[in-house]
């Protein structure tokens, strides 16, 4: 018995059950209701986008891991799947599949792998891919069609936010009804239209404590406060805060993109600043910017501050006599 060798390892010898693939898996499950809704509303166009984005993201990830001589088990951490899903969900239904593939390659290659792979990127990879497409192919990225469920045969169709911004929907009284926003029976990026489906997924993330509750809370609070002030001052000119929350990419952004662990702050104070910043930026862009939607740029903008926030707002060490930052 005494000759038998045992494993030598550093303490602790107990290990919690959570793991990176498990966390990613929960996020994927949480996205499924919205994926299902997008397929329901946009049919084969949605399916095509999902297949191309997932395949392209996965392949790009594999090629980079292989070229960088990194362990291939990282392929199964699930992050490429999430990037592919999120990217597809934020694409307009009309987008051609070649562009979807280009966006996916940019998302994984430029958004993540050039920084050193999972955990090292500064920006949310899916949003990098989307920002690239938006800049390079602005027309393709803003050509909208009505959902298949509307059964109307028109070539173009405004998103609720486009309608608000460029068609003076409040004054004209043509604001998209809340009920349509809630169920998702409206124009927009394929995965962003159905509020109920996104909220179902968000519920799972909260329940599993996968995301930091402060981020969506902060974003929703800031956006509501910002748009609420204008609405209270001029309800005949401005859209109400709940419209801003339910329309466009706010929910998918607040619950699934801003909450990306890698690109959001680590501790609470910085997290609040990050979240409130995103909310205010979205309000600013939507109401005073050149675009009708501002979720993508707001998140990317606040992503840049994360290293600074992490460095500035450190937790207080027990017994530290200095004033906490």
């Amino acid at each position: 018995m005494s000759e038998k060798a045992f494993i030598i390892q550093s303490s602790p010898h107990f290990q919690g059950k959570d793991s990176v693939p498990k966390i990613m898996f929960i996020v994927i499950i949480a996205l499924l209701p919205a994926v299902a809704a997008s397929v329901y509303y946009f049919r084969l166009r949605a399916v095509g986008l999902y297949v191309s984005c997932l395949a392209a993201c996965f392949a790009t990830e594999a090629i980079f891991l292989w070229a960088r001589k990194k362990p291939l088990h990282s392929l199964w951490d699930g992050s490429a799947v999430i990037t592919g899903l999120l990217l597809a969900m934020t694409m307009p239904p009309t987008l051609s599949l070649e562009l979807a593939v280009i966006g996916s390659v940019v998302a994984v290659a430029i958004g993540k792998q050039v920084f050193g792979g999972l955990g090292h990127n500064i920006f949310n990879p899916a949003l990098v891919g989307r920002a690239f497409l938006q800049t390079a192919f602005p027309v393709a990225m803003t050509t909208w069609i009505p959902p298949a469920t509307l059964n109307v045969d028109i070539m173009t169709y405004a998103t609720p936010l486009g309608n608000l911004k460029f068609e003076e929907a409040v004054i004209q009284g043509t604001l998209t009804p809340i009920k349509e926003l809630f169920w998702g029976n409206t124009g927009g990026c394929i995965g962003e239209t159905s509020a109920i489906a996104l909220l179902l997924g968000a519920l799972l993330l909260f329940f599993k404590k996968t995301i930091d509750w402060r981020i969506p809370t902060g974003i929703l609070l800031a956006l509501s406060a910002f748009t609420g002030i204008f609405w209270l001052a001029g309800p005949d000119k401005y859209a109400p805060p709940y419209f801003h929350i339910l329309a466009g990419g706010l929910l998918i952004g607040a619950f699934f993109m801003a909450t990306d662990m890698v690109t959001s702050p680590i501790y609470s104070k910085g997290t609040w600043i990050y979240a409130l910043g995103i909310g205010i930026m979205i309000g600013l862009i939507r109401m005073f910017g050149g675009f009708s939607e501002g979720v993508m740029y707001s998140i990317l903008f606040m992503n840049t501050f994360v290293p600074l926030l992490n460095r500035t707002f450190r937790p207080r060490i027990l017994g530290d006599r200095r004033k906490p930052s």
Partner: protein
Amino acid sequence: MKTKTFPHGIHPPEGKEPTAEKTLEFMPHPEKVVIPLHQHFGNPAEPLVKKGEEVFLGQKIGEATSLFSASVHASVSGKVLSVDGHNHPLGKPVLSITLANDGEDRVRPDWEKTVDPFVLEPDQIRQKVKEAGIVGLGGAAFPTAVKLTPPKDKPIDTVIINGCECEPILTADYRLMMEYPDEILRGAELVRIATGADRILVGIEDNKKKAFDLIQQKTAPYSAEVFLVKTKYPQGAEKNLIYALLGREVPRGGLPFDVGVVVQNVGTAKAIWDAAKIGKPLYERALTVSGNGIKEPKNLIVRIGTPFLAVTDYCGGLNEDVNIIIMGGPMMGLSQWALDAPVIKGTSGVLAWTSPKPVAEFACIRCGRCVEHCPMGLVPTQLMKYVKYDQLTGAEDWGALDCVECGSCQYSCPAKIPLVHWIRLGKNQIMSQKRKKSA
């Protein structure tokens, strides 16, 4: 009553059921004991005996060399077989005295009994504790006499008796509280007298309600109060327990003295009483032998120097597929490469189990769970990165030296990064740099 606690921390599986209700058993003494001269925090002791000499049970065989050192005593009576290097639970050979047990437990003739230890002067208590070679029995093995000697400018008002036993699986402290409550409280009273404190607070985790009830019934003669604290790891870590019970924060780099507190483990309190009352040196201790690789898990009182193999054999032996042996608890214990290392004063448990295949390590996804759970308010992932890329100044600036190595960060890390290993490495490097500078 509202249970007290500290912020952050984790809830690992407790695993105390197999041994919680098993009374402490005196393990039969082995034929041979190996007593290392270095079993404590600080400098090793000097050997006092030579090969071939006869020793009594409890005879001092190693003399403390300085303030931060502790004497060691024979744990059996018999003959000195050798004085040389022997495998130690820390993993490297340490000068040790091997004794052949004559099985008679012949006691040192000059054991100094005291009729009423409560009339002893503080200095006398300290002297008895030092003579008995007592060190903290919670695991860190800090020489107790030092802890009983607060600096003149730091008045002590509170003695905390640590009955948390927050490490999973271990139940030896719980058994001590159930079976020796009077000795523990009397020992606590001696600590109070020695440090000039006004009161004694006993902290017990609320998964040991029975021990709490029992000790509470017995506090009357002493100025002691018992508190239930929340079952949460690391509730029994000195600085966290002080915060939980008193709301005081030990300053960074400081000692409990700095906030007027002395903390003693329940086992140490009992040892102090035994030393003062019957002059008994620290030659045996309570420990838990458990884990699902042990056939008959037990709580034992074991002579110091008993090889782990003898301990596990007494508990029915190991299951065939055991591949990991831990001295101490699962969160902070030391893994052993062989079973020939002996039980030392800091051995709170001997655990064995079959470890599943090590899980693959992923990249840090900055989820912040290590930060969320660190009881010291550190950023383990940042410390890990500093150490990994040799930026020791950064690591020190971000509080590497404040880390108590409790393992809460690594336990909660979904990427399975060996955070404690990296931080420990960083601490070692920072300390050796400091030594070089001062040398």
